[in-house]
């Protein structure tokens, strides 16, 4: 009997456990191993063991890189929240049939390849493209300014790309929270003397915090590791950690250093997420 049930338990756990071990723990162990190796002449990681990869990470160059990556991701997450919240409120308040349609529209971009969409966005910001040419036409010729506006290859264009790419990941969890929200609570708050802003902060925000927290994590974490958007929208000018890691594994051919960087990034992101969850939960309890 005892044996039978433990066999069954093993049987039930096997697929999940196998998946975790084969595709999560083993690769991470591999990365940890590589991060302590030395870059060989031919590019493949070699002995001897070293901690140089880590000490190099704590140099000024890479600390600045981490700082900038965190900063850009943070700002783009905040921008995503600021855009997604009103949009989601608007969607939730639509009549039922339009609401489903709106959510469908939010998800439609997923059917197009992310790279393709980013190229399209890049085209819109390219100074040779029709969109920017029209703007600069007005800016230089009509308003008489000397220099053309350049939006591409700036921190701003990187943030915009990140916001654009990640917006659905904020809208969907927020929608799930807002859909359950009881709107009479806002009337109650207003009845008790709270203006629109205080009703939002004291009633709506705490009650939609789960969706907001989930959405923020879903937006922040991919943003910090992103390299396609950083590459296409930022050029070389606003380097982020994700792109650096990608370069270490490709052009620079320095796997050990890339491995060390990605492990440190993992630790930083996990720590940030934990702090955020803790703060978020405290906010809810208040």
């Amino acid at each position, binding site marked *: 009997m005892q044996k039978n049930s433990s066999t069954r338990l093993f049987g039930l756990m096997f697929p999940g456990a196998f998946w975790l071990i084969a595709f999560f723990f083993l690769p991470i162990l591999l990365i940890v191993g590589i991060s302590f190796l030395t870059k060989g002449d031919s590019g493949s990681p070699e002995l001897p063991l070293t901690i140089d990869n880590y000490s190099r990470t704590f140099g000024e160059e890479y600390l600045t890189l981490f700082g900038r990556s965190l900063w850009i991701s943070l700002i783009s997450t905040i921008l995503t929240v600021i855009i997604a919240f009103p949009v989601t409120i608007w969607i939730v308040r639509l009549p039922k049939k339009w609401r489903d349609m709106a959510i469908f529209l939010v998800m439609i971009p997923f059917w197009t390849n992310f790279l393709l969409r980013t190229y399209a966005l890049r085209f819109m910001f390219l100074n040779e493209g029709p969109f920017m040419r029209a703007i600069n036409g007005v800016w230089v010729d009509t308003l008489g300014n000397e220099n053309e506006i350049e939006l591409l290859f700036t921190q701003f264009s990187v943030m915009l790309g990140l916001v654009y790419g990640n917006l659905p990941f904020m809208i969907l969890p927020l929608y799930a929270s807002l859909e359950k929200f*009881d709107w*009479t*609570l806002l*009337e*109650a*708050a*207003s*009845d*008790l*003397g*709270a*203006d629109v802003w*205080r*009703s939002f902060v*004291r*009633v709506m925000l*705490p*009650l939609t915090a789960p969706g907001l927290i989930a959405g923020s994590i879903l937006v922040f974490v991919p943003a910090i590791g992103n390299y396609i958007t950083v590459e296409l929208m930022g050029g070389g000018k606003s380097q982020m950690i994700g792109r650096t890691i990608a370069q270490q594994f490709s052009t620079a051919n320095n796997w050990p250093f890339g491995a060390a960087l990605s492990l440190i990034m993992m630790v930083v992101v996990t720590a940030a997420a934990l702090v955020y969850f803790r703060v978020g939960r405290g906010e*809810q*309890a208040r």
Partner: protein
Amino acid sequence: MAQFLTDSAVELCDVVKQFGDVAAVDHVSMAIRQKEFFSMLGPSGCGKTTCLRLIAGFEQPTKGDIRINGQLMGDTPAFQRNVNTVFQSYALFPHLTVAQNVGFGLEMKRVASDEIKRRVKEALELVRLPQMADRHPKQMSGGQQQRVALARALVNRPQVLLLDEPLGALDLKLRKEMQIELKNLQTQVGITFIYVTHDQEEALTMSDRICVMSKGKALQIGSPLEIYERPNCRFVADFIGETNFLDGKVLQINGEFGEIEVSGRKFVGRIGEGVRVGDKAMMSIRPEKMLLVDKPNPNALNTYETRVASIAYVGSDTRIIVKLGDTQVDVWEQNSQSTLDPSYFFKPGEAAWLTFKPENALVIKE
């Protein structure tokens, strides 16, 4: 400037509220007195809740003026009106404790924190829930949540308390208890209560005055006694309590009383507002105001022979349906005698003489 124009707590002046093509509130005027327990009574969709929401400021009237304590409300938003609402669903904040819920309004008015603490405690004592301060609403029963909602509104000492079917979700026994408690509370705190309900018994029990509404219109405003004894139209007579309607034509009017012909029989009753000779009208007589007798008094008015159709003994009274020609009439005889003698009661098929006093019969315009 416009202050103290009237001494009404709340005044609605020719208020209209359109939702699309539908007038939810259709030219309603009423003046609610200070410290009054005022009920708006009517079936669902009659506009009573919309009226309440207009007073609270959740909706803006399409037309007409609303005054609270003489002050014209205009576009004043809900959060700036000195009224508080007890919602049908209670609308307690699920993420806050009972004490935080009750203190919410004071906090919004930036009252000092120790005063908030003191007044929240007082309010919770008022609704007899002092030990529940640290609970969350979800951990409480419906009746307790209802009291918290009441405390949350009363703690702000509003000029007017608006209650939107607050007892609707409670079971019958609790509802009866809360009716008495609410009425006592209202007398105790001396605040004007505007109470929306579809339950006529609730309205009769608790109110100083009732406004009966139907299809967005205020049909009659008066004390429970006036509403029950002198309904001004068929709807009010029908909606409040039970009544018999006899359709006929007004033959003559003599002061307060008049004669009406109902399928060949002549009845005398009190003439209602706006009824004229020759009008098609109906006579409304409450079942308990009718009397069945074995032998008629030959001089009495409104006395006709009928046949007993059915009889139901319900303890406090006996409910008899008699046939007056083709018309069915409900008669409730109070069982004022304690008897087991079957011959005391009428039997189906028996002849009986139906009689009622003219002052108990009301002639209402069609």
